[in-house]
């Protein structure tokens, strides 16, 4: 059974149709990449999958682990193991990253029928995962994403992913804003989390990321439709020729 099965998905935001029938099937263990021009609907797809209520699913179906995603609220999707690393992570003043993560981890553990982590156990997990993305200690003490640099926010998203251990992770332009070293570290972190059970959907504009996180499939999204799919070589092709060849095709 596919981990994530997207069938003819259509969605709109503010009465404007953005997704025009997307089909995509991700098996456990696979990494899929989506590339596409600005405004083609990549973040819209991420938001719809994560359950953002500002986006309305107007057609099609999405099955996650066999369950109809449209019947689950955002928090239920997260608890079921779906994770979205935001293109623009939200700043939340007044709540420390640690406190926030502890609440998140425990909400998800509770759902899985696992016992709540106490302060010490939680710190152990933090220590463990911290190494994975080399996140600075002071970022954990600070308010969630507040005043973080662009790159720090992205790294924090991947840190959260490592803490929450999802079944399926969607990374929306996690590479944009990262410097060359950070890109490598974050990619290593993602690779360390690759497993036969876990799926990834990596949205990016740059082939460079896909040199580090090597995808099994690459899809081209134009005007809310997947207009071409292929192997990792497709990313190189796009890097060279751009999206021009596809722009007409999708309309």
């Amino acid at each position, binding site marked *: 059974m596919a981990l994530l099965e997207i069938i003819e998905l259509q969605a709109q935001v503010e009465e404007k149709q953005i997704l025009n029938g997307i089909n995509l099937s991700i098996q456990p263990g696979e990494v899929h990449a989506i590339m596409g021009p600005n405004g083609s609907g990549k973040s819209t797809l991420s938001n719809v999958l994560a359950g953002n209520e*500002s986006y309305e699913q107007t057609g099609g179906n999405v099955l996650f682990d066999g369950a109809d995603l449209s019947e689950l*609220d955002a928090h239920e999707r997260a608890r079921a193991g779906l994770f979205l690393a935001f293109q623009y992570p*939200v700043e*939340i*003043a007044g709540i420390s990253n640690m406190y*926030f993560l502890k609440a998140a981890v425990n909400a998800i553990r509770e759902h899985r029928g696992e016992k709540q982590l106490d302060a010490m156990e939680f710190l152990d997990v933090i220590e463990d995962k911290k190494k994975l993305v080399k996140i600075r200690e002071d970022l954990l003490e600070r308010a969630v994403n507040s005043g973080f640099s662009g790159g720090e926010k992205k790294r924090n998203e991947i840190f959260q992913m490592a803490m929450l251990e999802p079944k399926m992770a969607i990374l929306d332009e996690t590479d944009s804003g990262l410097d060359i070293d950070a890109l490598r570290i974050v990619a290593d972190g993602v690779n360390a989390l690759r497993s036969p059970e876990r799926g990834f959907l990596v949205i990016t504009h740059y082939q460079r990321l896909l040199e580090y996180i090597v995808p099994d499939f690459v899809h081209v999204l134009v005007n809310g439709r997947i207009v071409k799919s292929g192997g990792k070589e497709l990313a190189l092709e796009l890097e060279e020729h751009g999206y021009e060849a596809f722009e007409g095709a999708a309309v």
Partner: protein
Amino acid sequence: MDINTRREEAAAAFAAKGLPTVKEEAWRFTNVSRLNEETFDAVWQAAEVSFDPLSDLVVVFENGKWSVEASSLDGLPEGVRVRSIMDSADARLGTLADSDSGFVLSNTAQFSDGILIEVDAGVVLEEPIHVVHLADAEGGSFAYRHLIAAAAGANVTVIEEYIGSAGVRYLTNVVTEAFVADGAKVDHYKIQRESAAAYHFQTLESELGGDALFSNHAVTVGGRLGRNDIRGRLLGEESEAICNGLYLLGEDQLFDTHLFMDHAVPKCQSHELYKGILSDQARAVFCGRILVQQDAQETDAIQSNGNLLLSRAAKVNTMPQLEIYADDVKCTHGATIGELDEQALFYLQTRGMDPQQAHGMLTFAFANEVLDEVACSVVKLRIEAMVQAWLAGVNE
């Protein structure tokens, strides 16, 4: 002028003037006329209200009077004197609280007790002084007059806490004057959790010398109708005033904060961070006036007032007012009234928190920004618990 003459004059002025009316600009949104229709009497009796001391140094007032039995000042070090204001005719009394507000006049005329805290030059008192006011006398009128004087280089923390017995109707009217001499530091906290049927008014006046620090954190959850008038005068260079506050209001509570910061000399800072969370039909008024006089070059003044409305019927009137007569200053102010951010709510939910948890966490986060600034850890814990309890009540 001796204190008795001053009290007689205040009584005469109050008799002529009465309480403020909505015709006065500063009282436009806060109608206290119901106080004229209700009766309140000074009733001195012990109070059966429990409280948790936040320090080994505790002074307890019960229904308007200092309770010797309930208070404990053991271990007060040399150079610090804590007495009842009734025991000493302090010449400074009334020199700061000189406004002709009806509440100040009536307080000067009628105060029945209060605390006088004097810290000698260079003396640092680590332990905070917890001043507790307990009220449970129905129809009671309690007028307290406090005076804090920190001499040059002295250092003291004072916590004023007001606790009322649930449902009891009474009136608390307080005037506190704080003298902060050169190089001195006074951290002042006010926790107001009066009964939901109570009326509470306080005027807090402070005067800072050079290189001095005065901080005030005012947290309000109680009272049906209340107001804090918090006024500071920066009279010596390089001094700093911090006035932060948090008000959590529900039902038909009305709470008014009037801040006034007077920058008279160069190179001073004043920081004011106020936040409010309102549910039901609650109302808040915030007026923050900052005056930067012509001589007060290089003033650094920041003010912000944020309000979170949890209900459509809740209402806020917020008015920042900057009056700047110097040209080399850094002053910013801002006010917001809003609801929780949808994007932030979604973000929390994508991390597994259900909508109620997400609301609770963001609401707490909103208030927590003010708590971040609280230096005294026992006070911080107390306020955190109050905020959590208040939020739990809202979610019920």
